């Protein structure tokens, strides 16, 4: 790697490399899924840059859900990043508004997890001006690979016959994220309640069953937690975070 790069940036790029194994197939699926034009699919990847919510938007547009429901679903899927934003904000406070905006655009599960682990262990105040370098090393690497993976998926997907059913990969990715998100009894209750309500409400106009199901699921999780059901103090929110264990 080019030794003229700042050391923290190089460290970030190096630490992001193992994550690419998880990112690449996900990006390919986000590109493969038919329904949108290639330009729209790539536009979604660049403008939104959040995998699960991109797949949700493609899925819902394919079902002709109401446009407001599509946008609302993207918001709900991405709400977890409020926590990341709050948690990492203290480390970015010295930066200019423009750099902070750039860092915010690049915020993902993985970039957050790696950068926070590094910053929490880094007690040296002198390094605070270099802080975004490590974060940007991780986040930019993920961004580039994500966009490249989407483009490859778009090109590859167009060449694959429909009988391969590649579109089925979308619900499979959701399952891959859902299973680790169900880490204790309250989160299991949240998932079961949300799924059941979504199925029962599948006939509601505008695909509103999805939103109603999600709200009922979250309420169920909170209610179960409040009653002390199987509280293991686990990270029910860490489900979509392949960076665990690094």
């Amino acid at each position, binding site marked *: 790697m080019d030794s003229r790069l700042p050391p923290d940036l190089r460290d970030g790029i190096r630490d992001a490399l193992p994550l690419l194994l998880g990112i690449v197939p996900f990006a390919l699926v986000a590109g493969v899924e038919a329904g949108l034009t290639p330009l729209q699919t790539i536009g979604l990847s660049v403008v939104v840059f959040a995998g699960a919510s991109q797949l949700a938007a493609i899925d819902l547009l394919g079902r002709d859900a109401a446009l407001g429901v599509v946008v609302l679903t993207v918001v709900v899927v991405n709400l977890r990043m409020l926590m990341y934003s709050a948690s990492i904000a203290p480390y970015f406070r010295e930066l200019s508004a423009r750099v902070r905006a750039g860092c915010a655009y690049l915020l993902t599960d993985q970039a957050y997890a790696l950068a926070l682990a590094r910053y929490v262990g880094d007690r040296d105040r002198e390094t605070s001006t270099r802080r975004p370098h490590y974060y940007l090393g991780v986040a930019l690497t993920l961004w580039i690979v994500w966009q490249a993976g989407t483009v490859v998926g778009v090109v590859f997907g167009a060449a694959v016959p429909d009988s391969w059913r590649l579109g089925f990969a979308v619900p499979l990715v959701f*399952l891959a994220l859902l299973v680790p998100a169900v880490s204790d009894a309250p989160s299991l209750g949240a998932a079961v309640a949300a799924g059941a309500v979504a199925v029962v409400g599948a006939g509601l106009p505008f695909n509103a069953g999805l939103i109603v199901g999600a709200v009922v699921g979250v309420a169920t999780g909170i209610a179960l937690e409040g009653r002390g059901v199987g509280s293991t103090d686990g990270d029910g929110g860490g489900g979509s975070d392949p960076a665990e264990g690094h």
Partner: protein
Amino acid sequence: MATSYGPPSIWAVIVAAGLATFAIRLSFIHLFGRVEEVPPWLERALVYVPAAVLAALVAPDFAPASATVEAALTPELLGGAAAVAAAWRTEDVLWTVAAGMIGLHVARFLL
């Protein structure tokens, strides 16, 4: 799965979803100093958002068309079951998708 929305509607959704997502990401990074942390009630709710939203998204894709055993035993459901098993064991997106796709096509061949 082709949508019947025209390009202007699709692009409007992309831009609106992108702006909303950016606002979520920027929120506290921008506000920090005025707001020190996420309100506790919100943090509590956010813990259950992934499980609830993903389940609500995925459940209708696997729900049977009618409540009979023949209707329930679809290739999609069997592929989904294979994917859940793989996700449980590996917690890896690649293996989960691979298991689900193989399960789907094996089930289509057998059923």
